[in-house]
């Protein structure tokens, strides 16, 4: 028997797959949904209400780029109106001062602004668009409001050496939180992995610098660092455990236990157009599939850590071990761990990694990237 569901805590609302950026590690699926399939304002508002009724506390409005929705102000107002804590997970484009003013007025609690680098040329290359200067302007506008601010730097081989400049940007803008989130390898990032995975030397330097930053910023800015899974000893408790805390709704209304769940073959997803969120959360086959521990294999099944990491990430197990019920291959106890070690060995080959002084990516041509397109 799968275990009984507790309440969902957070609703991740992928409002759209449209985005002015084309980031090479985008967490959206390779098959993007078009505008014509997106849920209406009314349906999203019902989803927010049902989420609050099911016990959720937070709504993360994301995408694609949530600001690409012309009704974004109304959606923020309606999510807040039913009592949810509303975060906007955004690139800051397209946004002007008047729109920001409307969003704050509608009850936006928290603005999470992504950065693709600290240097304009890096950021523009990674996002496949000119966006960096605009983001810096958005940061200046936000200072006028008393809302939550998180800066999110997505870090990888190509920009991890810009850490000092990223920290200068943090110092200048004083957010409540800064995240240095390493790229994880799914979807677009999986396709671009060879160009994105940092070297061990880069990572060691990063960890050492961020430990100091945490002390320097204590009481001002909370510093969060997310290690690339491949370098971890044990897997992350992916989405806080399958079907335990989080529910993601795609632009067309499918309910997923995590953003990458579509890579698992045979999973059937329910749609919010046909069933209530509560019904889906409690009964959907996809949410039940890896809830609890019954699905686990060895070494997870008898492992002490299974209540902490829940066996790691199901999608990563699928991508790397070809079995969605296998132990996450990044785990040092997993039978498939040698695959990860081989990838890391290749990344850290002396020739490829280069001397410490030279950027290891200088050999990389722009044409090596696979850019995420904008859906119709």
């Amino acid at each position, binding site marked *: 028997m799968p275990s009984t569901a507790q*309440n969902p*805590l957070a609703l991740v609302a992928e409002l759209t797959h449209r985005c002015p950026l084309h980031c090479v590690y985008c967490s959206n699926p390779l098959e993007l949904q078009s505008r014509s399939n997106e849920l209406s304002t009314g349906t999203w508002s019902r989803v927010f209400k049902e989420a*609050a009724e099911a*016990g*959720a*506390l*937070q709504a993360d409005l994301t995408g694609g780029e949530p600001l690409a929705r012309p009704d974004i102000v109304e959606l923020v107002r309606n999510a807040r109106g039913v*009592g949810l*804590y509303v*975060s906007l997970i955004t690139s800051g484009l397209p946004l002007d001062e008047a729109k920001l003013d409307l969003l704050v007025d509608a009850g936006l*609690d*928290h603005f*999470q602004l992504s950065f693709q680098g600290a240097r304009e040329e890096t950021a523009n290359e990674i996002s496949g668009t000119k966006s960096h200067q605009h983001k810096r302007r958005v940061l200046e506008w936000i200072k006028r409001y*008393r*809302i*939550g*601010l*998180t800066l999110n730097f997505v870090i990888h081989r190509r920009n991890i050496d810009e850490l000092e400049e990223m920290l200068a940007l943090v110092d200048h803008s004083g957010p*409540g*939180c800064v995240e240095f989130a390493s790229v994880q390898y799914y979807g677009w990032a999986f396709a671009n992995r060879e160009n994105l995975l940092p070297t061990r030397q880069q990572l060691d330097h990063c960890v050492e610098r961020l430990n100091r930053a945490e002390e320097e910023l*204590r*009481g*001002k*800015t*909370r510093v969060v660092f997310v290690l690339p899974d491949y370098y971890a000893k044990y897997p992350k408790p992916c989405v806080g455990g399958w079907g335990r805390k989080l529910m993601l709704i795609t632009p067309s209304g499918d309910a997923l236990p995590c953003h990458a769940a579509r890579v698992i073959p045979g999973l059937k997803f329910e749609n919010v157009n046909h069933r209530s969120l509560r019904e889906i959360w409690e009964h959907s086959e996809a949410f039940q599939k890896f809830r609890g521990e019954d699905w686990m294999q060895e070494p997870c099944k008898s492992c002490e850590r299974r209540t902490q990491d829940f066996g790691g990430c199901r999608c990563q197990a699928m991508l790397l071990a070809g079995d969605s019920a296998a132990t996450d291959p990044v785990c040092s106890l997993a039978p498939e761990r040698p695959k990860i070690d081989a990838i890391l060995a290749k990344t850290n080959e002396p020739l490829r990694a280069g001397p410490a002084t030279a950027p290891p990516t200088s050999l990389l041509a722009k044409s090596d990237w696979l850019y995420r397109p904008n859906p119709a």
Partner: protein
Amino acid sequence: MSVDLNSRPRFAAGCRMGENSNQRVLLMPERALRLNGPSLEIVSRCDGKHTVAQIVGELQLLYSRAEPRKVEQDILGYLALLQKERALDFEP
């Protein structure tokens, strides 16, 4: 980092009280903290008006069966934790 008894704690930007299924919570970016009993009594006084000393005094009265010194220590420890989590600012 120690907490100044004369400072006035208030919610940091992006933090507020919330409620769901009769459970009070402190909502913060990406996180929420359940508030019960003493933690609810402390957090609901973090309004930018009460000083830390006043919060301590009021809770010592409220929990008069507990050792006053212990009540103070617990409150200072909890406020320091909330400051580290960036849930509170301390106004002079």
